[in-house]
Structure formats: structure tokens, C-alpha cells
């Protein structure tokens, strides 16, 4: 590692992906610095913690990896920014009857916002993360966001908020590999976390218990109210709107001759609306707060594969931009689980065009 080598800050979580990413960068001769973001602390009053990120174990793992790789490692306090730009909007979205995905907000404001600024203040040329996605620069100099090489692990969905400026300063070393290969790289580097299991939960929630989280942080957000059908007839009682999501069938506590699904909510009336399967199907959505990775919307309608949840399959659709930050999506076939608050992300092949937040539909 010479005096003149390019400096890269790696966001380390103690997991295998970011650890291997750091290792790959060290091997490539970069001047690598590991940073862990302290995003959230919630003490349950008995020494236990409700969140799974930045726990003492994760921190010890990341530190051990950094020691093994021979790179400096620091923890930076981002709790205030994280609360203001991720957790509070998450709570507000639930209170507004939406089903938010906080990871997109976190990438927008924290990882490729505050952390990227940190990296720059440390004279780093790049910020690297362990995401499974790829960045390509085309001949005209523009950056493209591509799916990760491993289709099962692709994380471009949560990166669809990225701008040209951010893509120019970010590296995703893991995106060129399969998960299995990344584990092998970690093992070859002698990193003790090579076989560590991964967690799918939101980082600030333990065991994915968002209901408990809302009960603690937004006590008024879940109030029981009526369940009605699309004709407005009362069928039962719900435990609080944030506990339901569009397309949900289980856990409604209703007995009906045909299965009933959550089709929407009237937030003002604290009412959950259910209907038969055929009511649920929709073939259109409106996305707001749209980010076009290229920096501007396409000139007219484009054909695209659209993902309406992180782990959903792509559905063929026509995406029509409506101004800079709105898009209308018309699917070739109806979908049953279009969920306001989740992101709709647009693809052409491996290229992620961008995405936006699914707006509430007229009931």
C-alpha cells in the first residue's frame, strides 16, 4: 500500500459481503479504510437490544476483519441523521397507511449521502459497499446501474435511488461475483465471517418485528377499527392499519364463503378494505418521487420489466414518464400485490433505469 494509492472507504457491517468487498479492494492495491455506521441504538432496559445492526457482535466482527486485512477501522455516529431521514419517515409512512421500504431512504440519505460525505472528508476517491450490483460507464461517460451478477442476490432494487454523481464515486466489488464466490473469497482471505449466515431483517428491527417497533415508537399508529368489504359492509375488526398489507389474506380473522384479501385502506376512517381476489388485481400504478438513474426521464413511454417489491419477479410493463419525478406504469397483465409505499423499479435487461414510490390508488 503505497503513499500514492487511491483511497477507498468501505462501509463495513461485519457481514460477509462488505468484508469480502474490503478484502477485494485491499488485494487490488487501494488504500482502504473501514467505517461502520452507528445508526440506531435501542435498549430494552434489560441489556438486550431490539435492533440487529451495529450490535457489539457485528462491531467485533467488523473490527476483526479490518485487523485481519490490516486496514484502519472506525465507527461513525450517524444516529441523528438516520432517525431524521429514515426512521421518522418509516413511522410516518405507516401512519399514513403505506408499507414503506426504509432501505431505499437509507441508501439515498445515509449510505450515499452522509457516509459518502464522510468518505470525501477523509480524502477518499470512492465509497464502497457490499451490495450485489454493478456500475458501468458507457462510452458517453454516463454511468449505468446494473443488476448484480448473481440473480438470486441482486440488490439493484434498493439502489435505484442512486444518481449519476453518486455512481461516479461508488464501488460495488461484490457485484461481479456470486454469493458463493464471495464466501469463498472471504474464506481465502482467512476472514472468520466467511460462513456467517445472513439476515434479511431491517437493520433497526430485531426479528423483523415492525409491529412491536411501531408500538414502541408511534404508540398511536395502530388503533383497532372496522374491516369492510368494497360495498362498505362491516365484516370485522382490525388491530391497526399498519399491521396489514395489500394482498394479505391470512390473519384477517374473517370467515367468508370465498377468500378475502386486503385491497386497500381508508386511512382517514381507520378502515381496512377487503375484497375477493378479482377485486385485487390491478394492471396500473403511479410512481412518485421517481429517480431516473440516467439523470433525466426518457423522452416517452418505454418498455420495461418492473419490480414492485424487493423480492418480486419482474413484470413486463410500459412506463410513461409524467414530468421529472412521476411515472405511470401499465402492466401487460394484472398484479395482485401492488402495495402503496413500496418501490416500483424499472429494468431493461440488466440495466436499472430507476424507480419511484408506489402512490396510493383510488379505492
Amino acid at each position, binding site marked *: 500500500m503505497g*503513499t500514492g494509492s487511491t*483511497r477507498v472507504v468501505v462501509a463495513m457491517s461485519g457481514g460477509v459481503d462488505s468484508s469480502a468487498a474490503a478484502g477485494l479492494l485491499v488485494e487490488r492495491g487501494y*488504500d482502504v*479504510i473501514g467505517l*461502520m*455506521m*452507528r445508526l440506531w*441504538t435501542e435498549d430494552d432496559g434489560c441489556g438486550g437490544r431490539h435492533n440487529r445492526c*451495529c450490535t*457489539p457482535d457485528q*462491531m467485533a466482527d467488523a473490527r476483526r476483519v479490518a485487523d485481519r486485512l490490516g486496514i*484502519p477501522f*472506525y*465507527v*461513525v*455516529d*450517524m*444516529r441523528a441523521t438516520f432517525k431524521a431521514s429514515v426512521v421518522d419517515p418509516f413511522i410516518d409512512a405507516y401512519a399514513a397507511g403505506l408499507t414503506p421500504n426504509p432501505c431505499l431512504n437509507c441508501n439515498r440519505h445515509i449510505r450515499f449521502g*452522509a457516509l459518502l*460525505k*464522510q468518505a470525501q*472528508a*477523509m*480524502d477518499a476517491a470512492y465509497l464502497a459497499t457490499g451490495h450485489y450490483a454493478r456500475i458501468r460507464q458507457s462510452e458517453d461517460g454516463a454511468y449505468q446501474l446494473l443488476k448484480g451478477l448473481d440473480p438470486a442476490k441482486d440488490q439493484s432494487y434498493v439502489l435505484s435511488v442512486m444518481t449519476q454523481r453518486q455512481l461516479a464515486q461508488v464501488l460495488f466489488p461484490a457485484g461481479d461475483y456470486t454469493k458463493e464466490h464471495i464466501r469463498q473469497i472471504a474464506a481465502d482471505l482467512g476472514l472468520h465471517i466467511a460462513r456467517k449466515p445472513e439476515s434479511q431483517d431491517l437493520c433497526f428491527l430485531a426479528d423483523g418485528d415492525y409491529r412491536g417497533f411501531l408500538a414502541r415508537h408511534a404508540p398511536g399508529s395502530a388503533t383497532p377499527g372496522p374491516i369492510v368489504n368494497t360495498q362498505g359492509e362491516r365484516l370485522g375488526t382490525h388491530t391497526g392499519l399498519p399491521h396489514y398489507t395489500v394482498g394479505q389474506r391470512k390473519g384477517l380473522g374473517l370467515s367468508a364463503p370465498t377468500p378475502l384479501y386486503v385491497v386497500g385502506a381508508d386511512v382517514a376512517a381507520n378502515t381496512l378494505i377487503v375484497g375477493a381476489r378479482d377485486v385485487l388485481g390491478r394492471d396500473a400504478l403511479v410512481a412518485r418521487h421517481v429517480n431516473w438513474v440516467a439523470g433525466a426521464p426518457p423522452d416517452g413511454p418505454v418498455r420495461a420489466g418492473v419490480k414492485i417489491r424487493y423480492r418480486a419477479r419482474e413484470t413486463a410493463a410500459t412506463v410513461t414518464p409524467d414530468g421529472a419525478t412521476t411515472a405511470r406504469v401499465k402492466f401487460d397483465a394484472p398484479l395482485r400485490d401492488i402495495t402503496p409505499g413500496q418501490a416500483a423499479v424499472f429494468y431493461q435487461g440488466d440495466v436499472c433505469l430507476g424507480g419511484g414510490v408506489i402512490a396510493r390508488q383510488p379505492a
Partner: protein
Amino acid sequence: MAGNGQSIYMDYAATTPVDPRVVEAMMPYFTERFGNPSSIHTFGREASRAVQAARETVAGILNCKPGEIVFTSCGTESDNLALRGATLENGRRHIVTSPVEHHAVSRTAEILHAHLGYGLTVVPVDAYGMVDPADVADALRDDTALVSIMYANNEVGTIQPIAEIAAVAHARGARFHTDAVQAAGQLPLDVAALGVDMLAISAHKFYGPKGVGALYVREGVRLVPSQSGGGQEGGRRGGTTNVALIVGLAKALEIAYAEREAHVARYRQLRDRLIEGVRARVPDAQLTGHPEQRLPNSASFALRGVDGNALLMHLDLKGIAASSGSACLVGTPEPSEVLMAMGLPPAWALGGLRLTVGRHTTDAEVDAVLDVLSDAVARVRALAAA
């Protein structure tokens, strides 16, 4: 290691390198002279002689009797032995201490308070972190067992009026302990002049090895051992005697006091160069601790609107090892308890910076630190504002 290859240690209050003469003095006691001083045979006697010589050396510097020195495993243990030992022995049920003590004292006092029901009074400090003996006098009760006030503060360097406080405590029949861990090597340790009943030191702060300390216990002060076991150290501290490290502590203390005047004069000059430089070049920086009554080697500052840990990170990246009052490895910095007790608002108390010089510090290093510091502070402030 820093990107530009420089490596400047400005954290001598955290620990010091072992003097090569000390290493040399210790070496035989790891190998050929390995005996247990409690054994009656030749090997034991040889080790015992070494420990006795060490005890005499330490006693000479502290101006006390060799039998009044108890060797321990560190400064923390010395403080624990003083607080637990002297209060448990005593029928009295009250402890007086200050809000700027090292955790070795403050946590121990809190445990005695919370779990054993001792009364605990924490006297205030002024804006310099200084205890007023009159406040100690007010806090004293008929059942005060112990007053424990540190000699010099580890975070801001303030030196307390120990002799006066000791006299105040004695006037009400209370024992007086002082944590002299930071003072040792720089300030006089004459226990008779200080008038203390107990005094704690730790070798790694004065160019000795880590993992060995001592407690002076005035003759006649009875202690319940906090580490009970064999009859070592006059029954006051059980555990097979750590001969090599004790030899190292004594040698380090001997060297430190033989050379003290020269070192301290040099520390003062380096420290003042730092303080003047920060005053001139870093906006919104305030010296913390007493302007005169402070450790010769310690320059400490509060920096408005600066997360001290973020600053340390930026300094480390430039190869500068410094410390903050609220050192935190886990990214949840809290305002420094010491700075808060001195009345600094939280926006300043998060920004503690401690630069402590030592035997190997040079003028050039001080200047290099000053060059980096103003830029690093500006970066951290810019990030916080973003």
C-alpha cells in the same frame, strides 16, 4: 498507519512505552531468577530480595516505609483496594468523592453505595475541574469513612489541592485516598508532605510495564483485602507476587524521579507550544482544566460543535494518536462526564481533545500536529453542518 507515513504519539496519558533500562532490569526475573518470593529456598530468597529492593526504592520516592507499599496489578486495582479495603474495615458508612474521578474510583464508590448501602457525596468542581476543600469540609459527616480525590485529572490535567483536602478529611477523622496514577512521574509523590493515607500509582503511566501498580497505605490504616488469598503483601493483597513487573515498576519510578526535573521542564515547554498553537490556529477552541495548576504534559481542549471521536479518526488518518475525553469505540459518543461536571454545555463537551506529550515528543511533532489539527477540525465541523 497514516497515508503519508507519519506517526506521532500524543497520548502519553493513555500509556507510555517501557524504558529500555526497565526492560533490561526485568528480564532476568522472567527466566533465570524465576523463583516465588514466598518459597523458603534459594530461588525464593533471590526473588524475595528483588521484591524487597523494589519496595525500598518505591518507599524512598514516596518518603514512606517499605511496609507501607502494597504491589497490585494496576492503578484500577490500587483504587479498588483503597476504596473497598478502607471502607469495609471501618465502621463508618459514608464516602466523599468528586465528579472528575477516574472510573476506577467513581464506579467503585457507586457500587459501594448501590450494593452495600454506603452514603455517597460527590462534591462539585469549579470551571477548571478543581475541588474546593471547603466543599469537602461541608460534605463530611461524623460517619465519613473515606474521602477520595484524585491528585491530577486524566482528562483535563487539573491538579487538586491534595494536602489541604487531606487535612480537612483528617480533621473529621476520615481517611484520605488519592488516585495519583496520572501524577506519578511528573509531580512530587512525598506522602508525608501530601498528608495522604493512601495513594495509587500505575507503572505504565511512567514508562514502566502495564499490569502492575502500587498502593501506599499509611501504617495503622487497616484494609480488608479486595483480593483475598495468600498472605502476600502483608495480607493486604493475595496472589503470587509478580516479581518481574514489580522490579519494572520500581526501576521505572526510580528513573522517572531521577530525571524528573529535566523531563518536566521539557514537557511544559512542549505543552505550552501546543496550547498557544491551538489558541492561535483553531477557532472556537477552549483550554480545559486549570491554566496553571495542570499536569506538565497535558494540553486539553473543548471544541465547540465537534464530535471528539470523529476528530480522533481524522487525526489518526493523518498519523496522529490523540485522545478525547469521551473516548468511544462504538460510535455512541456521550458528552464527557468531566467536562459536563465543569459546567461546559453539551455542544462543547462532546468535543474533548487531549494531547499529552512525553519523553519522545519533539517540537517538530508539535508543529506537525498543529498543522493537521486546524484542517481536521474544519472538516469535522463542515460534516456536522452538512
